[in-house]
């Protein structure tokens, strides 16, 4: 009995570690097999989506505070590193960190009033903050308004994180995704992760056990904001051009949340799976409909939200878990014998 429980507790961890290692090795060699630049770009988009989703999951999944305004952090990241590069000539290595810190500070400032609201009202407040920010940036002469910012073309290499080839970008975003997953994993295993889940399940009971709701929600939002902003800086480096519509748009906020929700909220690997599915559909619809189909991505997002809400609120990962339980195997057999014992 005792050995049984220790075994069942330990086995999934090592299997999980092996699975993660294999997945990482596959991700590392994949662009060596897929050399077509447009296909490498597609892989980069998946990793970017996964990174955003994993970052969002910290606050929206574990802590259960659904933000529909994460583009604000993405945009702050993109604009901070780009402005520091164009005006001060600062390397994006530092610029991305500065963007992350600024986004985390912004998260603390917006979280303080917004976390007084619960559930849907919090989500609505985050939409409002992101929309206001987009309008402010669009009208800011300092930030070149709606015209947007170009990154300097005369620089290149690892010091400036600007490359002609797609391959370096692939490894940079893979590294950023690994970092984001590691942060998320560390939170999940620490007391902070337990507190986040407690706040999500029963906030009043969590308070009675000494958990400060404001404090831990602010931690969740600012860590998530930091990592999301790093993703925004990466976007700027890859595209070499940003404007309010490309990094502060409401559709980005929806996409970030949807990736996590589609894959399975509150689970480490959920958003990665969500990104693979969502970005694949998005890219195929783009080639299918071309420019005439501008806005089809929004139709797809809407359809997916409805499908997830109706059929599997715990996302694709939850659906897979249900399937596994219903497939013939060791567990259903145990249930059967139990039922047989009851009959006589």
């Amino acid at each position, binding site marked *: 009995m005792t050995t049984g429980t220790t075994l069942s507790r330990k086995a999934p961890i090592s299997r999980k570690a092996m699975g993660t290692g294999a997945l990482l090795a596959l991700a590392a060699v994949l662009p060596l097999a897929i050399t077509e630049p447009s296909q490498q770009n597609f892989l980069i988009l998946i990793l970017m989506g996964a990174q955003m989703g994993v970052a969002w999951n910290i606050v929206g999944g574990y802590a259960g505070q659904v933000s529909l305004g994460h583009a604000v952090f993405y945009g702050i990241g993109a604009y901070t590193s780009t402005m520091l590069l164009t005006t001060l000539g600062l390397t994006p290595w530092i610029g991305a960190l500065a963007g992350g810190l600024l986004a985390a500070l912004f998260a603390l400032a917006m979280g303080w009033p917004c976390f007084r609201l619960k559930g849907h009202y919090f989500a609505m407040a985050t939409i409002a903050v992101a929309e206001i920010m987009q309008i402010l940036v669009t009208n800011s002469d300092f930030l070149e308004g709606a015209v947007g910012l170009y990154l300097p073309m005369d620089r290149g290499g690892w010091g400036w994180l600007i490359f002609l080839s797609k391959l370096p970008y692939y490894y940079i975003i893979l590294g950023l995704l690994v970092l984001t997953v590691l942060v998320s994993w560390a939170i999940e295993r620490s007391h902070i992760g337990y507190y986040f889940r407690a706040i999500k399940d029963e906030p009043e009971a969590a308070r009675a*056990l000494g958990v400060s709701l404001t404090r831990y929600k602010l931690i969740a939002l600012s860590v998530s904001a930091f990592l999301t902003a790093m993703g925004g800086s990466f976007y700027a480096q890859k595209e070499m051009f940003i404007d309010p519509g490309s990094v502060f748009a409401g559709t980005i906020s929806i996409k970030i949340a949807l990736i996590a929700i589609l894959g399975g909220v509150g689970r480490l690997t959920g958003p990665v799976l969500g990104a693979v599915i969502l970005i694949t559909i998005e890219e195929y619809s783009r080639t299918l409909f071309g420019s005439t189909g501008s806005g089809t991505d929004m139709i797809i997002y809407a359809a997916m939200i409805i499908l997830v809400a109706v059929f599997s609120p715990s996302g694709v990962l939850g659906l897979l878990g249900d399937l596994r339980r219903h497939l013939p195997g060791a567990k259903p057999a145990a249930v059967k014998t139990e039922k047989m014992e009851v009959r006589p």
Partner: protein
Amino acid sequence: MNTAPLLAVDGLGKAFDGLVANRDISFVIHHGEIVGLIGPNGAGKTTLFNCLAGFHTPTTGRIAFEGRDVTGSTPEAAAALGIARTFQIVRVFQSMTALENVMVGAMLRNKRVAEARDRAEEELAFVGLSHRADTPASDLTVSEQKRLEVARALATEPKLILLDEVMAGLNPTEVREASALVHRIHQRGIASIIVEHVMEGIMPIAHRMLVLDYGAKIADGTPAEIAENPAVIAAYLGE
């Protein structure tokens, strides 16, 4: 400061707009004491609990814990001081196992996960739920969920525990077990205030009973005194 009572409530009142839920309630609780809090439905028992645990700010009066004024403190501050509570309608963390639920309580005093787990295992054993440690809390019976809430509250290492109807809906055997559990909590030196309608569960173990009616305290004495108090009989049976 050992001479100060554990809890001293002085002239406490709580009104929601026009509705007065608690009026001018005063009492003291001593270290390790078991006190029953009874009264007809709507007498203001849960409101009083919410004031003591920091969930409501009293409109009037003062609450002192170990001689310190704690009136209007937050629930998390109350928990840190050593006031723990359970909820009338159970509020277990549904997505967690029984053990993880108790770990959240233990983390108030020790943020290390492994040590919180050890502490939680002790408390689960204390309430007799060790065999359910890895069961999702949502799969436990209501009786088990109530015990889980007690274990979770005890894991915060309180000096005073507020138990809100932990015996309601239990069968006679379970009521006896719950009474025994309260007695073992007392043996650990932890005081408890117990809101209860199940008289056979509370009367044999309580050192003292407080009776509320229409938001005011109408009696304060030993269970035997309370049972013969005319005001209490009138409140329960009508004039």
